[in-house]
């Protein structure tokens, strides 16, 4: 994975609360056995008509999304199924961070392992972002802050270990593999 330290981008806004992973990537596309190419199916049923033509008024089909690597979602983004295909699809589409007041547990955990930064903000900041689609923001992992166009910096929480892995492009599996001796000792002690 490429190290990820700072994202500077305009935002694209998906204001609905409780956007579930079935919307992000419908189950019928989960028959894939690879991780690639899912961006095309991102928000498929909100994005395309039955004949496959794009729905002109859906935000991901408009200029609003061009060059946007930051998605602002409604509360409880990514709820529902554990499918990692959801962050895969977002990243494949070009999204590198999701901002909300609340991000569902499994989706957040999956995102952190795929170079997609979950950014939790307070309701006031969130509302401003919802009201100002296309705002130029920065997400800085070094300082753990979200930068707004007025120059203000909002701190966001992120697990220290996940942050370290993201900033250094490290796969978390490596750390577990290095702990083999400890794991073995644990197994032997229980046996």
């Amino acid at each position: 994975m490429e190290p990820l330290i700072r994202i500077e981008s305009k935002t694209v806004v998906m204001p609905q609360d409780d956007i579930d992973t079935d919307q992000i990537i419908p189950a019928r596309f989960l028959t894939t056995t690879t991780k690639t190419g899912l961006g095309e199916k991102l928000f498929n049923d909100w994005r395309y008509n039955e004949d496959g033509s794009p729905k002109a008024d859906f935000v991901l089909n408009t200029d609003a999304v061009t060059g946007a690597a930051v998605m602002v979602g409604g509360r409880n983004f990514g709820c529902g199924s554990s499918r990692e295909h959801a962050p895969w699809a977002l990243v494949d589409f070009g999204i590198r961070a999701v901002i909300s007041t609340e991000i569902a547990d499994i989706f957040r955990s999956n995102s952190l392992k795929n170079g997609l930064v979950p950014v939790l903000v307070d309701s006031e900041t969130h509302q401003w972002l919802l009201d100002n689609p296309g705002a130029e923001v920065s997400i800085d992992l070094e300082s753990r802050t979200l930068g707004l166009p007025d120059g203000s910096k909002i701190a966001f929480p992120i697990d220290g270990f996940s942050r370290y892995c993201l900033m250094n492009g490290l796969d978390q599996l490596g750390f577990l593999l290095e702990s083999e001796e400890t794991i073995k000792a644990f197994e032997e002690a229980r046996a």
Partner: protein
Amino acid sequence: MTAKSLFDKVWDSHVVSPESDDRPAILYIDLHLIHEVTSPQAFDVLREKGLPVRRPDLSLATLDHSIPTVPIASLKDLEIVSEPAAAKQVIQMEKNCAEFGIELRNFASAERGIVHVIAPELGATQPGKTIVCGDSHTSTHGAFGALAFGIGTTEVGHVLATQCLLQRKPRSLAINLTGALKAGVTAKDVILKIIGEIGVDGGTGHVIEYAGSAISPLSMEERMTICNMSIEAGARAGMIAPDDVTYEYMAGRSMAPQGEAFDSAVRAWRKLPSDEGARFDRSVTIDVDDLKPMITFGTNPGMVVAIDQALPKSGDAAFDKALGYMQLEAGKPVLGQAVDVVFIGSCTNGRLSDLEAAASVLKGRKVADNVRLLVVPGSAPVKKAAEEKGIDKIVQAAGGEWREPGCSMCIAMNGDKVAPGKLAVSTSNRNFEGRQGTGARTILASPLTAAAAAVTGRVSDPRELMN
């Protein structure tokens, strides 16, 4: 000594290395459940890195999500009934399990079925275990006093390679259920009520422990229905303390300890329930005395009303959007709404007692004209047991379809789906837009309520059809 909760006890006994500010805990996993949809990319990682599966003996694999439920003679016929990608995924699962030495409850196995149905059935699900699966409904196994939660595919790879996960300890939420359930009101109605009360994000970041006078009389299958939908309240896991009901269910199951070893296991399990005075980060009390059969009306499982209740008056934009999708009217009851499809099955309500409940309503009645009824046993053993009780005959005589085990119409990625715009009453767990098929509209309900909808052709109160 500090009083510990059930969750604390299971967590603490699986910490390989404790968490610190810059490191999550390494948590040992006792049982890894694997299915064909969320594992292929994880097996690929092992291949790329040249790693073996560390503990194939602690892995339990089956085919459930993309396997068709129409009867076929063998996997060779898969391409006749399945989409090519779904067929390929099933074949890939067979290959991955063979290559990495994991026993697969495969198509020919008499023990195959939905992973959350077969693990308890086999006795693999046990009190005090840590259990994970690349599936959010892994919370089901918490009914036994296990700590069981869903993980993503990267973490499936972590468990395959190391039998461990990197985890931060979640917070705890006690849900105390007081009162007693009336006839016709089921575990499904209880969990729908809970989700309606605390919201679809009410449990986010928490492990729930369900307790109280309404929990202890429940059977293991009913407890599984409740824990199953913990994720629908956003919770990491749901747990119920093990008791004699648990041990009776487990005795004699093939993967449970046997004889002397079982007695000694029970003695250890008896120490698991939360200590008096155990601390929870939050607690909620819900009384079920006046609970009625519950149904969902919107596009998430928290949008729920009692069967005879009028829908709330118009709320915010999201509420209106959901009702627009469902083609239901604010302020009006759902009762009496014409139904197109009834689905009885899934990891929530696809067990023998669920099929028995449905059959009690279907018996001697006919499925209404223009309604399609699909009854899908959760596993091959459930199917066999139901057939021994004549449930297949009851379903078929009523005009319903009796299928092979699998996730079926709950996830609509295996050929079973609801057509666009059609209204389904389902015993499954998610009423998200398109969950049961593009444009499909879903009302979640208990097996009794679903069966009542099948025979009346309308959303109906099952209590009116019960003897």
